[in-house]
């Protein structure tokens, strides 16, 4: 898998917001990763970790402060003309809020048809209609839904419409920004199954951004863990669960409740309980972002930001403790 070139390559991406003259919000601070064709990279983290900002910057919705986002080798933020147009077609996004990501004044057909109209994918009305119906059925809805308005649909159905909207332009890469967080548990399962199925059938590549590590681990081949704008661990899903190396990842995994009373009771004594709150991303202190809550914090952690190091077999960790000989 690593022989081919990455479809998306993010190098030292930084996205800062200047809140006031003295306060800088470092939403994304030096994040680097690659995504290979056909895979799903999960991006997980809690509120304020910058995963949504990162996803939107990769798609070109937000400008960048520094670093590069390369799609098939081309810098996303400096594309012009027909190349930019092609990028808009090949890279799509599905948003979090099923109630806010669809225009309430448009019918379902218009919403899905917008992509067709912009990219001139249909020669006449009939072809356009057929394409709309085709993709509606691909996402599990019916033809008769095309003339309806979005307020008549449930959350899960609206997310399907969002997915159909993204699919209609035949993209290669889709960024899914918390697509299931606002949905009920059993509906989440429907949407996730749909996404996995579509990926197999259409050969899509996904960047799956979410805060629910169970779901992310389930759907992703590799997982990137973010904390306060920095990438702390990047590895395959299996290895992330079997051998989490970064102290934050360990704490995160142990905090996630497993829906099984006996297992929960057994884990109770082993749980890593993080004290304190998540610090503010504004005007962060130098050094590792996790220093305030980390039980293994060393003096070097307060001075120098740890770099992302391969600890063997493509298991990347940004931690002074882990990159040393001592394994946690």
């Amino acid at each position, binding site marked *: 898998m690593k022989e081919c070139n990455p479809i998306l390559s993010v190098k030292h991406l930084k996205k800062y917001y200047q809140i006031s003259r003295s306060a800088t919000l470092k939403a994304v601070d030096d994040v680097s990763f690659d995504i290979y064709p056909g895979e799903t990279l999960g991006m997980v983290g809690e509120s304020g970790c910058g995963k949504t900002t990162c996803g939107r910057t990769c798609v070109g919705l937000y400008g960048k402060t520094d670093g590069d986002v390369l799609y098939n080798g081309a810098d996303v933020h400096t594309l012009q003309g027909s190349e930019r147009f092609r990028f808009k077609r090949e*890279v799509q*996004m599905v*948003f979090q*809020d099923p109630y806010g990501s669809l*225009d*309430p*004044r448009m019918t379902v057909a218009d919403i899905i048809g917008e992509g067709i109209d912009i990219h001139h994918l249909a020669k006449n009305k009939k072809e356009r209609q057929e394409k709309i119906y085709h993709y509606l059925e691909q996402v599990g809805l019916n033809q008769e839904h095309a*003339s309806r308005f979005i307020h008549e649909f449930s959350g899960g159905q609206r997310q399907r419409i969002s997915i159909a909207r993204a699919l209609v332009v035949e993209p290669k890469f889709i960024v899914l920004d918390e697509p299931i967080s606002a949905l009920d548990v059993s509906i989440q399962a429907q949407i996730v199954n749909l996404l996995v199925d579509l990926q197999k059938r259409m050969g899509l590549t996904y960047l799956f951004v979410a805060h629910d590590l169970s779901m992310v681990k389930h759907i992703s081949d590799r997982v990137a863990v973010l904390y306060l704008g920095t990438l702390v661990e990047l590895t395959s899903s299996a290895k992330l669960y079997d051998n989490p190396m970064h102290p934050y990842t360990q704490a995160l995994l142990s905090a996630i409740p497993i829906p099984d009373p006996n297992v929960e009771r057994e884990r109770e004594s082993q749980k890593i309980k993080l004290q304190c709150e998540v610090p503010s991303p504004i005007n962060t202190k130098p050094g590792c972002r996790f220093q305030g809550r980390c039980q293994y914090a060393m003096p070097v952690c307060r001075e120098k930001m740890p770099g992302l190091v391969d600890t063997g077999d493509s298991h990347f960790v940004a931690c002074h403790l882990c990159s040393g000989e001592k394994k946690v």
Partner: protein
Amino acid sequence: MSELSKDQFKIIGYKEENINKIERPTISYWQDAWRRLKKNPIAMMSIVVLGLLVVLIIVGPYIQNYDYITMNVAKKNQGPTGANWFGTDNLGRDLFARTWVGARASILIAILATGIKLLFGVAYGAAMAHFGGWVDELLMRIIEVINSIPSLLLTILIMMVLGNSFPALLVALSITSWCNTARQVRGMIKQLRESEYIYAAEVLGAGPLRIIFKHYIPNMIGILILDASTAIPSFIFTEAGLSFLGIGLKSPDISLGVLISLGQQSMDFYPYQLLFPCLILCVIVMAFNLLGDGLRDALDPKLRR
């Protein structure tokens, strides 16, 4: 409770077609708003009254074949009779015809002024929202300066400079009224811009024109309609007040305000000359206001269902 039989317990599972079926008929935002409006008896009443008024404004003066200028001194200052339904004024002119022509002028001014207010307000507000930064700050300061000048003073000054004509009145009425519209539009666009469906359109590759015409405008029409429905009665009232004071239109131009002013002069002896224009003015303004209230309820998305 009837007995349960064995074949009622055969497993049949769920029907695939029933899974995603939507029971209710499809209904667009405007259809839904209209349905809500229909349920509001006061609003429907206002629509009927306004409809009637519009008809009368158009045909009223022709019903009895009196025109509003012809003086018939023999018939001056007569109360309402079979021949002159609203009576005559001190120069023998038929008040019924004059009232409707006056109403026509008042409403026309109000609608035109509202049109100017909306057009200018939308353009100004959109510019503020689009450019942001120092342009936004500058344009906002201009609005604040205009707002801090008492509008009545400004209106009077303009009328004094430009004279008592119809166009002058139009300018005077709309010169300060667009500020509110601009602010509302600015706020609305700023809010819409952060909507995820606008982001989705950008990701799809939509250009700014498409976003403006297909997304912003349809979502803003609601508040613009509301703005208009409150602006029109307000303008009618203001014009009446100005003309009454002699600052707006002056005789021989007619408007409801002019008629009220003339009627007020002979109020003690011929009260009907004041009564009828006042009555019509109040009915028009109240109908618009009540309709405006009804529209606000009907168009408010939060009250959906």
